[in-house]
């Protein structure tokens, strides 16, 4: 068996695989202020869900808090883990776009499932989940409702700024000008998608394309990104868990090597 733990900026994810590579248990919770506690809770959750004692099962950690997972036999970057995780469920995928809470990545996956090239967003929250969180707050809707609201729009507002802070004041300006919340929400997605599509094009859009990360759950994001890239996007069942899944696959591989 193998365990993968992905300590992200917003959420911590865990996956337990059996020796055939099937998911036995999975967990997702907010990282909060203590990454160490989030890891403990995740392990506890996986253990009680699967009813398995996790002792002696190898753990691979990933995500920004990967160094905080003390019992991990190794930490691997989320870039490699997402590639391996997506490859595990769909070996055909060649471009992976992962949009999480604080970063966005475009990764070209080679035939072996390992990354061949990648680009990450710069030091800026535009084009990440945080951007949508801020905009949802301004529009007074929940994050889950932001996407469906945007899809009602026929004429997205224009948001020229790519900076979260300036875009926020631009949105407030649109509200003042009486534009509908749906149009503004759609404008927010269009603006975000323009950054992500530029990132993806730098790596090269090779089909089939997959979207993962928390933002992949947002239907408006997937709709506008698909339009912008001119291609269908495949979203796995648990798009937030592919990093942890990849880590668990690597843990299995490691175990295979040592036994």
């Amino acid at each position, binding site marked *: 068996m193998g365990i993968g733990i992905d300590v992200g900026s917003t959420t911590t994810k865990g996956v337990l695989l059996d020796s055939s590579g099937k998911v036995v248990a999975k967990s997702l919770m907010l990282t909060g202020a203590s990454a160490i506690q989030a890891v403990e809770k995740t392990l506890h959750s996986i253990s009680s869900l699967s009813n398995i004692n996790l002792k002696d099962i190898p753990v691979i950690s990933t995500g920004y808090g990967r160094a905080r997972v003390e019992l991990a036999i190794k930490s691997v970057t989320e870039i490699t883990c997402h590639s391996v995780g997506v490859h595990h469920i769909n070996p055909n995928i060649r471009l992976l776009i992962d949009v999480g809470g604080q970063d966005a990545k475009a990764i070209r996956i080679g035939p072996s499932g390992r990354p061949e090239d990648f680009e990450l967003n710069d*030091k800026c929250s535009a084009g990440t989940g945080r951007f949508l969180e801020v905009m949802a707050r301004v529009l007074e809707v929940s994050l889950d409702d932001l996407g469906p609201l945007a899809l009602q729009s026929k004429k997205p507002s224009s948001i020229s700024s790519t900076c979260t802070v300036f875009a926020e004041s631009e949105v407030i300006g649109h509200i003042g000008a009486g534009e509908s919340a749906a149009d503004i929400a759609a404008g927010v997605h269009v603006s975000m998608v323009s950054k992500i599509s530029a990132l993806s094009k730098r790596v090269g859009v090779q089909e089939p394309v997959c979207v993962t990360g928390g933002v992949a759950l947002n239907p408006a994001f997937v709709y506008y990104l698909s339009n912008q890239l001119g291609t269908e996007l495949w979203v796995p069942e648990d798009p937030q868990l592919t990093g942890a899944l990849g880590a668990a696959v690597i843990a299995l591989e490691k175990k295979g090597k040592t036994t």
Partner: protein
Amino acid sequence: MTEERASEEKPYRRLETQTLLQQIAFRHGLEAMQASENGELAWVTSGFPVEIPIAMNLGVVYPEQAGAIIGAQKIGPDVCGFAEDLGYSQDLCSYARASIGSTEKPEEVPMGSLPTPQILLACNNICGTVLRWYDAISEMTGAPVFLLDTPPIEKEQLPHNQEYVRRGVERLIEFIGSHFNRTLEEDRIHEVANLSSKATKLWIRALEACKNKPSPLNCADRFLTMAPVVSSRGTEHCVEFYESFVEEVEERVKNGVGAIRDEKVRLLWDNIPPWHTLRFFNMLASRGVGFPADTYTHAWTGNMVGIDTPSIIDEVVETYSKVYLNMGLDAKVDKMCQLINDYDLDGFVMFSVRSCKRYSLGQLVSKEIVTERTGVPGVIIEGDMVDSRVYNAAQIETRVDALLEMLM
């Protein structure tokens, strides 16, 4: 990440010549102070044809080098802050901010402030910022500025530009001559150019020794040992230093001794280093990752052939117009590809330096082209050479680790 360990266990080896390097730096500092007291100290930019002021018996110091020292002392944010307090933007080059900041409050920057200049010599072959920066220093110190204008070169230098730079060099000689009431002696400039050429040739020999596996020098070694070829070329003691240095480097090669203990991966470094975090290279060394070549130290390989040519001035025009940063993007890409092939490198790390637009512009495009032409992967990391406030270690680590996972 790495604990302090006994020297013999460290993943990298210290150069014996480092002691000499400290001596030469100390001597250089004393000479500069003396020159300033005598009323004959010039501040020069890193790409300036320094052979001319040296041949006219001026002392020279490099504010960029002082910036590197400020960065290495980890006081970059404080010293840049002094310039920001005067109203300079955080987007301004951190070498310029460190220089302006340390001139404003020299007592706060004991190791990084330079003796008062009598003349400021700027050449824009490295960037356009130098002119405004030296203007600011001129306002603060009263020293006059001379700008040697070298139009950028896309492919070949156009004849009218060559003539233009030539006149600039002649004006420089007149400017120094009238300011200090002295002339440029033919014998002396030949002597200085010859010494400069000797030092540069030795430097190239040390760099090229890094083609060996394992490489006898890592990135941080070259960043430190490049100091004399930048600041003291054209002097006897500079040549002496590089003679000892090359001897040590070639001894390492002969004995198969590497700069790092267990070289597994060889990478190219592009751009100025993060002076505040040189341990970046040592941390990678502990994982078997070395940097046998970089574009920064290779930029000082312009070679003055002092004795064989009829005109030293033509030589100066040629050498200083064609410095790395004064050439177009194609030349930069060619250089990177050449280094990757010649030094048999597995990948490359491009440091996108917020301060240095001239160096960093075009990296996104050149990264693609370099990978296409050489077949090796690369990664871009962001930060700054002096201002550690814009250096995000966690983001950099993730990017570099991902590159290494592709290679190892």
